C-alpha cells in the first residue's frame, strides 16, 4: 500500500486538538497525530481566525479527493454537507440546490469506473468572481470562494461562468437556516469549504464525515504549509484538477482520475 491507512492519512490538519495547541505556544513545532502533521504556533494562530480578523494569504486551503477510495454508492459527504449547511431540497431536483454531488464516471473506451464528489473547486482565479457585477462572488485571501448574500442580486452570471456547475440558485423560500450559514431566496450559493468551521479551527463537514464514517477519501488542509498532510500527499502522488486546461488552479485536487 502506497498510502497510510485511511484514518491516519486524513487526520484533520486543524481540529479541536489543534486549537488547544495554541495554548502551548512555547513549543516550536508540534505533532498533531501519529506523526502526521507538524505545525508551528505562529501558523496555528493564523489558522484560527478570530472575529474581525481578516483571512490570511499565508494560508491556501485545499481539499484532496482520492477517487480510489471513493465508492459509487457512498453519499456520506453529501449528506453531511446538506445537514451541516441546511440546503435540504423541496423534492424538485432541477431547482433544488446541491452544494456537493457525487459524480460517477465511466471511461467510454476502457469501461473503468470512478466515483467522486464535486463541489465548488475554490479556484485560484475563479471565473465566478471575475464575472460577478457587484463583487458578491469573492475569494478570501486564504483561497475560499464565497458569495456575499447581502450584495448578490441574483443575476446568475456566476453560474453561467462556473466550469464545474458548482453553484445553485435558491429558487424558493428557505426555512430552518443555520445561523452560521445564511441563505436567501433569489441569491446564488455554493460550497463554502464550511468556512464557519474552518475559521473555528475545524475541518469541513464532508471531510469529517468521510474520515469518520466512510473511506477517508478526503484530506483538507493548508496547501501553503509543506508539513501539512495535504501538501505531503500532493507532493508524493500524481494528482490532477478537473478542467485543468482552463488554468484556474482550483483548491480542490483529485487523485485517481
Amino acid at each position: 500500500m502506497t498510502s497510510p491507512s485511511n484514518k491516519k492519512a486524513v487526520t484533520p490538519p486543524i481540529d479541536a486538538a489543534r486549537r488547544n495547541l495554541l495554548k502551548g505556544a512555547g513549543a516550536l513545532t508540534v505533532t498533531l497525530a501519529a506523526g502526521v502533521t507538524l505545525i508551528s504556533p505562529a501558523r496555528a494562530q493564523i489558522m484560527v481566525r478570530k472575529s474581525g480578523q481578516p483571512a490570511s494569504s499565508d494560508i491556501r486551503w485545499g481539499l484532496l479527493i482520492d477517487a480510489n477510495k471513493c465508492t459509487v454508492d457512498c453519499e456520506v459527504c453529501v449528506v453531511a454537507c446538506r445537514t451541516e449547511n441546511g440546503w435540504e431540497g423541496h423534492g424538485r431536483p432541477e431547482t433544488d440546490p446541491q452544494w456537493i454531488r457525487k459524480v460517477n464516471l465511466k471511461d467510454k473506451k476502457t469501461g473503468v469506473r470512478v466515483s467522486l464528489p464535486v463541489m465548488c473547486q475554490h479556484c485560484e482565479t475563479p471565473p465566478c468572481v471575475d464575472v460577478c457585477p457587484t463583487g458578491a462572488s469573492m475569494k478570501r485571501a486564504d483561497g475560499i470562494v464565497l458569495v456575499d448574500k447581502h450584495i448578490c442580486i441574483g443575476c446568475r452570471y456566476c453560474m453561467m461562468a462556473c466550469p464545474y456547475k458548482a453553484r445553485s440558485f435558491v429558487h424558493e423560500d428557505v426555512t430552518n437556516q443555520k445561523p452560521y450559514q445564511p441563505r436567501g431566496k433569489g441569491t446564488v450559493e455554493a460550497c463554502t469549504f464550511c468556512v464557519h468551521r474552518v475559521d473555528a479551527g475545524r475541518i469541513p463537514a464532508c471531510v469529517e464525515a468521510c474520515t469518520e464514517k466512510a473511506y477517508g477519501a478526503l484530506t483538507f488542509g493548508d496547501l501553503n504549509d509543506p508539513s501539512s498532510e495535504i501538501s505531503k500527499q500532493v507532493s508524493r502522488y500524481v494528482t490532477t484538477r478537473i478542467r485543468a486546461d482552463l488554468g484556474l488552479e482550483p483548491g480542490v485536487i483529485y487523485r485517481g482520475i
Partner: protein
Amino acid sequence: MKKIVYREIEGSSAGFYSLLAWFGLFIIAAGAATLYMEEYGHYVTGMTNQIVWGMPHVFAVFLIVAASGALNVASISSVFGRKIYKPLGRLSALLAIALLAGGLAVLVLDLGRNDRLIIAMTKYNFKSIFAWNIYLYSGFFVVVGIYLWMMMERKMNRFTRVAGLFAFIWRLSLTTGTGSIFGFLVAREAYDSAIMAPMFIVMSFSFGLAIFILVLMAAYGWTGRPLGDAVIKRLKNLLGVFVAGVLYFVTVQHLTNLYAAGNQGVERFILLDGGIFTSLFWVGQVFLGGLVPLVLVFHPVTGAMRQYVALAAALVILGGFAQIYVIIIGGQAYPLELFPGMEVTSSFFDGQINSYTPSLAEIALGLGGVALALALVTFAAKVLPFLPMSLADADIDPHYMKPEPEAEMNEVEGTEKAA
C-alpha cells in the same frame, strides 16, 4: 429636396388609445408575472440550476441588441452623411432608447433580488463585463439623449455630427459588451469565442433595422402620412446586406467551433441532433430568418412590394429570436464537459442534455418588455416631434427626379402631388 417638417402625431383617435391600451395590458401582465416569480421564487419558471438563463434573457438580449441596431439609421445620416436618412434620425434614436429600456426592464425584473438594483448601481466589480455593461447601458441613454437633443434643437444642430459619431462609437461598444457576456464564458464550448462580439454587432444591425422598418411603416400607415418608396428601398437593401452579414458570421462561428475537436459535441448538438434547437437553428434562424428575407428583399418582384419588405423584416425579427434562443438556451442545454471522454452521471444532471420549457410568466415578462418599448415610442411620438410630416420621395430624396417604374406599385398618396 424640401425642408423637413417634424410634427407630433395627433394621437387622439380610438386606434391610438386602443394601441396604448394593448401595450398597457402586456405591461401589466409582465408586472404580474414579476410579482408571481418574486413571491414564489424562480422555481415557478422554466429556469433551473441547469438552464439558469431562460426566456426573459432571450427577450432582454434581443431587445438590447436591437436597440443599438435601431440607432444605425441615425448614424448613417450623421456619421456617414447620407442625406436621405436624416429625416429618420429622430425616430431611430427614440426607438433605440425605447428598445433598450424595454430590454433592461426585462433583465432587471428577472433578477433573483431585483429589489437590490441600487446595489448593482453602486457596487462594481470592474473585472465583470456585466459591470461594464451597466455603464454602457446607462451611458447609452445619456449619449443618445444628447444626440437626440442635438438633432431636435435647431441651435444645436451643428453638433449633431459630433454627437452622432460619439453615439455610434458608444453603440458599437455596447453591443461588444453584450456579445462579450457570452464570448467571455471560457467554460462553455458554445460561447467561448471572440467572434461573439462582432457577430452581435451585425445581429444588432439586422434586428434593429428590421424593427425600425416595421415601426416606420406602422407609424406612417396609421397616421396617414406619406412614406415614399425611395426610403423603403434603401432600408430594405440595407436590411438584406445585414441579414447576409449575420449569415456570414454564423457560418464562421460554427466552422471555427467545428474545427476544434473538443467543441464538436456541442456543434453536433446544435446543428444535427439537438431537437428543438436544431430545428430553430435551421428552420427559424437560417431559413426563415435569413434566406427567405434575403430572397424577399432582393427579388425584383417582392423587393418592390412593401408588404413583402414588411414580411421580410418580421421574419428577420423572428429569426433573430430563434438565433438568440439557440445561443442562450441551446448553449446551456448542452451539458458542461467536466470529464472529457467519460460517461457521466450524477444527481445534478451531469452529462445530460438539459430540458427547458418556458413558463407563461417568463413569456409574459418578455412580451411586457417589447410592449414597454413600443408604448414609449408611441407616447413619445405624440408629445414630441419625432416624425417628419412627409417621407415622400420628393420631400426627402436628394436624388429625386421622377417616379421610378418600380416605385409605382406602392405609390403613396402625396408623392404624386409632390412630384
